[in-house]
C-alpha cells in the first residue's frame, strides 16, 4: 500500500502540488489579510538570486543549505525594500518594484554567466517541472521518496506548527498590530518570521511549481476564502481546501489536455476565485446585484405607499391609487410598477380591491402601510415615531 503510493508517479506529482498549495494557503491567509501579498511576489522573484548565490558559495542546489539561504534571501529582500521605503523618497510599492526586479535581474545574469556549470535553467526556475519531481529520490525507511516531496512535507509541517503555535499572536498581530505590541507580542518579529517561512516555502516549491506560479498558490486560495468568510479560522481552512481542490482538478485537467501540470493547478485556483467572485453567497457579484435590486424594489414600495397615503381620502383617490397611475404619474415602466406592487403586497403594506363597476382595481393602505407612511413622511415623523 505504502509502496504503491510512493511508487506511483501521479500520487507523487499530486502530493507535491497539494503540499505547495496547503503551505501557501496557510501563510498566504495572513499575508493577504495584512496587505502584504505583493511581498510574496518580491520574495519569490528574489529567491532566484538567493538560489544562485547559495550555489556559488556552497555548490548545493537543494537541501537544508538552500532552505537556510532562502531565509536570508527573503529577509534581505524585505529589509532592503523597507530601507528604500524608509528613506521617504518612494512609496512602499515602488520600493518593492525597485528591489525585487534588480535582485531577479542579478540572479538571471549570474545564471547566464555560470550556465556551463550550473544545471539550472532559468525557465525551470520560473515554471518548475512538477511532472518530474519523482525522478530525484532518497531512501526514507526503505522507501524511495522524492526529495522535493520530502522537503515540501517538512516545510508544510513547519508552517503548520508555526501557525498553530502562534495562532493567537498571529491573529492579533494581523488585525490589531498596535494591540499586539501593547501585549508584548512583537508583531514585527512575527511578521518577519512569516515572511521567512514564505521564502523557505518558495525554495521548497520552486522545483515543483517555479518562482512565479508559487505566487498564485500563496495569494489566490486565501483571497478566495476571504470572499467567503469573515472568520479567520474558517478562512484558513477554506483557503487550504481551495488549494487542495485546485491541485486535484488541475492535475486531472492537465493530464486530459496534455498541458503543464503545475500551471494548470494554479489556473484552477483562479477558476475558484472567479467562481467565488461571481457566485459567492454573501459578497459575490450576483448576490450583490440581487441585493441591490431588492433594495431598489423596497424603496419603490415605500414610494408607492407614500403615493397612496398622499391621495388617500381625497376625491381623486379612485384615479390616483391605481396601478395605472404608477406608470402615468410616477413614470415607472410597467415591470418596475409590478415589482413594487408585489413587494408592497408581500410586505402587507397595501391591499388590492376590485374597482367599482368596470373601473380598474384600486390600491389601499393597510394599517401597517399607513403607519409606515406616517413614519416616513417628514411632517409625520414627530407625531408618530416609526414602530
Amino acid at each position, binding site marked *: 500500500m505504502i509502496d504503491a503510493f510512493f511508487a506511483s508517479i501521479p500520487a507523487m506529482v499530486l502530493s507535491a502540488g497539494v503540499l505547495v498549495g496547503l503551505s501557501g494557503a496557510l501563510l498566504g491567509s495572513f499575508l*493577504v489579510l495584512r*496587505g502584504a*501579498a505583493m511581498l510574496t511576489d518580491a520574495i519569490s522573484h528574489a529567491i532566484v538570486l538567493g538560489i544562485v548565490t547559495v550555489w556559488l558559495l556552497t555548490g548545493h542546489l537543494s537541501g537544508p543549505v538552500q532552505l537556510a539561504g532562502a531565509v536570508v534571501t527573503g529577509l534581505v529582500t524585505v529589509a532592503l525594500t523597507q530601507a528604500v521605503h524608509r528613506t521617504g*523618497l518612494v512609496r512602499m*510599492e515602488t520600493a518593492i518594484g525597485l528591489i525585487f526586479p534588480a535582485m531577479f535581474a542579478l540572479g*538571471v545574469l549570474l545564471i547566464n554567466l555560470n550556465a556551463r556549470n550550473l544545471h539550472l535553467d532559468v525557465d525551470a526556475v520560473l515554471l518548475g517541472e512538477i511532472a518530474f519531481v519523482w525522478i530525484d529520490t532518497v531512501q526514507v525507511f526503505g522507501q524511495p521518496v522524492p526529495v522535493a516531496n520530502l522537503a515540501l512535507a517538512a516545510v508544510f509541517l513547519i508552517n503548520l506548527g508555526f501557525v498553530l503555535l502562534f495562532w493567537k499572536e498571529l491573529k492579533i498581530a494581523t488585525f490589531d498590530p498596535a494591540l499586539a505590541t501593547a501585549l508584548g507580542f512583537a508583531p514585527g518579529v512575527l511578521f518577519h518570521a512569516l515572511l521567512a517561512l514564505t521564502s523557505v516555502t518558495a525554495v521548497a516549491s520552486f522545483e515543483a511549481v517555479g518562482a512565479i506560479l508559487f505566487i498564485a498558490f500563496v495569494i489566490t486560495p486565501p483571497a478566495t476564502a476571504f*470572499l467567503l468568510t469573515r472568520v479567520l479560522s474558517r478562512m484558513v481552512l477554506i483557503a487550504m481546501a481551495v488549494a487542495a481542490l485546485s491541485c486535484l482538478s488541475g492535475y486531472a485537467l492537465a493530464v486530459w489536455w*496534455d498541458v503543464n501540470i503545475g*500551471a494548470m493547478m494554479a489556473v484552477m485556483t483562479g477558476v475558484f476565485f472567479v467562481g467565488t467572485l461571481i457566485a459567492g453567497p454573501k*459578497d459575490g457579484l450576483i448576490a450583490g446585484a440581487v441585493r441591490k435590486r431588492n433594495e431598489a424594489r423596497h424603496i419603490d414600495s415605500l414610494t408607492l405607499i407614500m403615493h397612496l397615503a398622499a391621495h388617500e381620502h381625497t376625491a381623486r383617490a379612485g384615479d390616483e391609487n391605481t396601478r395605472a397611475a404608477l406608470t402615468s404619474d410616477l413614470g415607472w415602466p410597467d415591470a418596475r410598477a409590478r415589482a413594487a406592487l408585489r413587494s408592497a403586497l408581500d410586505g402587507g403594506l397595501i391591499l388590492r380591491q376590485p374597482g367599482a363597476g368596470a373601473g380598474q382595481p384600486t390600491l389601499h393602505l393597510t394599517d401597517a402601510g399607513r403607519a409606515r407612511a406616517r413614519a416616513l413622511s417628514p411632517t409625520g415623523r414627530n407625531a408618530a415615531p416609526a414602530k
Partner: protein
Amino acid sequence: MGALLSSQIVQTVVLGAALLGLISGALGAFAVLRGQSLLGDAVSHAALPGIALGFLIAGGRDLGAILTGAAISGGLAALAVMAITARTRLKPDAALGVVLGVSFALGVVLLSHVQGRSGASSAGLSSFLFGQAAATLRSDLWIMGTLAAIALGIITLLWKEAKLVSFDPDYARALGLPVTRVQGMLTVMVALAIVAGLQMVGVVLMVALLIAPAAAARQWARSLAGMVILSMSFAVASGVIGALISASARGLATGPVIVLVATGIVALSMAFAPERGLIWRAIAQRARVRRLSSDRVLGTIHALARDHDNPDYPAELGMLQAEHSSATVPALTSLSARGLVREISHPPETTPHWQLTEKGRARADALNRGEATDD
C-alpha cells in the same frame, strides 16, 4: 565601441531600447505618481497568455499578432485588478497578486499547449519571458515606433486631464472630468508600455523599466512635465547603456542588464538629488546641527554679557567650553567667520576671550525673540 556601433544588430537593439525607453519612461511616470507601480508587474505577467493566444491564432511567431494578444490580455488584466479592487473587500495588493499569478499560470498552460502542438518551432516563445534583444528585427522597430507615437500622442492630447487625475482625482471629478475613464485609459496604457518591452526585456522584468526611471526622475523633478521628460531620458539611457553593455560581453542577457542600469540610476538619484537626495539631506542636516550649536554658543556669550551688564563682556574660552564642550571651538570659528563674534585678549589673563560684535548682538536678540532667520 566604434566596431560595436557599426554592427547592424547592435544598431537595431540600441534603437529599439531607446524607443522602449521613450514609452516606458513616459507611462511609468504616471503609473508611479498614481501609486500603481506594481500594476505594471501584474500586467506584464498577464501579457503571457496573450502572447500564446496570438501565436495560436496567427499560427506562427508573428510579432504583430503576438503583441496584439499581449496588449489585449494585459489591458484586460489591468481592468480586472481595478474591478476586483472596486467590487470586493480585497486589498489592492491581493487583487494584483491574484491577477498576476493566475494569468501567468494561464499563459504557461497555453504555452505548454502550443509547444505540445508545434514542437520546436515555438521554442522562441519562452524568449518573451526575458526578452531576446538580439532577435529584434528592423521591422520590429516600426512597430515599437508606432507604439511610442501612440503613447506619446495620447499623453500630449490628454495632458491636462491626465495631470489633474493623477494628482487630485476628487477635484478632477468635481470639475466634471471623466475621471474613471481617464484612469482606465492611463491604466490600460501601461499595457502598451509592457507590450513594447516584451521583445527586449521580457514579461518578468518589464516592470522595472516602468518603475525605476520614473522613481529616479521623481527625485530631481519639480513639475510633472519635468518628471516625464527626465523619466523618458533615464529610461532611454538605461536602455541604450544596457544594450551596449550586453552587446560588448558574452552571456549577458540584455533585459537584466538594462534593469540593473536603471536600478543604478535610481540609486544615484536617491543619493544625490538636490534637496531630496540622501546625501543632500545628510549635508543639510549637518549644517543645521552646526548652525544650532553656534547659535547656542552665541546665546551663552549674550547671556553672560547681560548678566554682567556689559554688552562687550569678554567671555573666556574655558567658560564656554565648560558649557558646550567640544562643539565650542568649531562654533566660535564659524561665528567669527560670519562676523558675529570677535576674539580679544583680556589682560592679565592669557587665555583667549570672545566678545559679541554689533551684528552678533542683533542676531542674539533676534534669537531670543524667536525671530532669527537663517542668514
